[in-house]
């Protein structure tokens, strides 16, 4: 008996529609978030992540309405984020029905935000999202949807984030995101083995074998993917059956 490895579909939204890009650009419409949430809940997803990638102030009410509608469909945990800059932003998302909140750029600019959120909601509700890009033999933290480079190194930032109260790391490989060439095993293993909170690997999923690799070699606690689920390339159910056959612990519907 131990924790099941989680499979987490991610809905990147522009507020009300799900969109998908390659290497963080070239966005296209990928569906209705409420319909997708309902489907993933029924198919055995272990959790759902909804991100507001536009994260613009004027679209905020639309995003919160999306969270409310999505939460109403789910009997699994819901994580929401994108553009969370303050405790008030996070409160709005939690009140709309999210169980956890992700922070990214705002936490890099003001790390104290992580502690504020953790004190208010508990560390189990605070997810530090890190967008990492390879830079020689290390990984650099990127912000602002991957457009802005920082001086932070991903492993030390993840460690610092956990110390400040983040209960989970959502780790996206910008080199792999949207490429469908497999998760970044080296990046994920480096962070997961160093940090004493769960790590969700993201970016690059295509084949079931990619998930097996990231759980076994990458030491990921959970794996996140978007387009392969939205586009019906991979069903969550058959993915979990594949993993169970490989003796990887997953939650199969009873």
């Amino acid at each position, binding site marked *: *008996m*131990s*924790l*099941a490895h*989680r499979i987490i579909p991610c809905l990147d939204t522009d507020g009300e529609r799900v969109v998908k890009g390659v290497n963080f650009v070239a966005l296209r419409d990928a569906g209705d978030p409420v319909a997708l949430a309902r489907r993933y*809940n029924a198919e*055995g997803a*272990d959790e759902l992540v909804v991100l507001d990638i536009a994260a613009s102030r004027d679209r905020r009410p639309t995003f919160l309405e999306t969270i409310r509608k999505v*939460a*109403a469909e*789910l*009997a*699994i*945990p819901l994580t929401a984020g994108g553009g969370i800059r303050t405790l008030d932003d996070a409160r709005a998302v*939690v009140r709309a*029905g999210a*169980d956890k909140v992700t922070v990214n750029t705002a936490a890099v600019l003001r790390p104290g935000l992580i502690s504020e959120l953790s*004190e*208010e*909601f*508990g*560390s*189990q*509700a605070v997810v530090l999202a890190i967008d990492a890009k390879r830079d020689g033999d290390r990984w650099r933290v990127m912000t602002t949807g991957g457009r802005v480079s920082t001086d932070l190194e991903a492993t030390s930032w993840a460690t610092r984030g956990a110390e400040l109260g983040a*209960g*989970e790391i959502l780790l996206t490989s910008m080199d792999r995101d949207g490429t469908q060439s497999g998760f970044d095993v080296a990046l994920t293993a480096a962070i997961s083995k160093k940090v*004493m*909170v*769960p790590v969700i690997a993201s970016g690059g999923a295509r084949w079931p074998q990619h998930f097996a690799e990231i759980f076994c070699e990458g030491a990921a*606690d*959970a794996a996140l993917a978007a387009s392969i689920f939205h586009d019906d390339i991979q069903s969550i159910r058959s993915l979990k059956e594949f993993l169970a056959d490989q003796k990887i612990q997953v*939650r199969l*519907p*009873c």
Partner: protein
Amino acid sequence: MKISLLDYGAGNLPSVERALQRLGAQTERISTSAGVAKASALVLPGVGHYGALIRALDRDGLRESLIDAIRRGVPFLGICLGLQALFQKSDEAPDLHGLEILPGSVRVLSRAVKLPHMGWDQVQAKAGSRLLEGIDAAAYFYFAHSYAVPYCAEKQALETRATCSYGGEFVAVTEKEKIFAVQFHPEKSGAAGQRVLENFLRTAA
């Protein structure tokens, strides 16, 4: 029967409420001791910090009425922190007293494992659990916590109906007469969690 949810600002109240309503239960939110005194079934949700829950109960004057209702045999379901509150005290807020209804204290889970204990885990059920009735032994439940009540067979064998192992064995389901509590989140545990809530509603009816 109406299910009264204790509303002291817990983050998971809306999802617990929605899950109960989906099962056809009538619910109300209560936040006063008069509300607790009138309740015919009580649910104490909770997620986050133990201190926040206990302080809220004392701030709103709910402690006495809650203990009184539980002692009178009003069906009670505690979820996550709502389970922890039933015990003596917690490492998370050592200066505060719990409701002191059940023996045992809340401790931090082992530092040797990743914390929080976050995600889907299985439980080791003892015979005769009413909450787990009809649920497959291999079912998974959603946990999100760093503190738990370490299972002590000498003191807690009677009421503990299931344990979970993560850096040590802890109380996952406890049942004593009309007192029910779970460390996991049934409102987030898919079909298995729904069945737990259904079983509570049936026992409470």
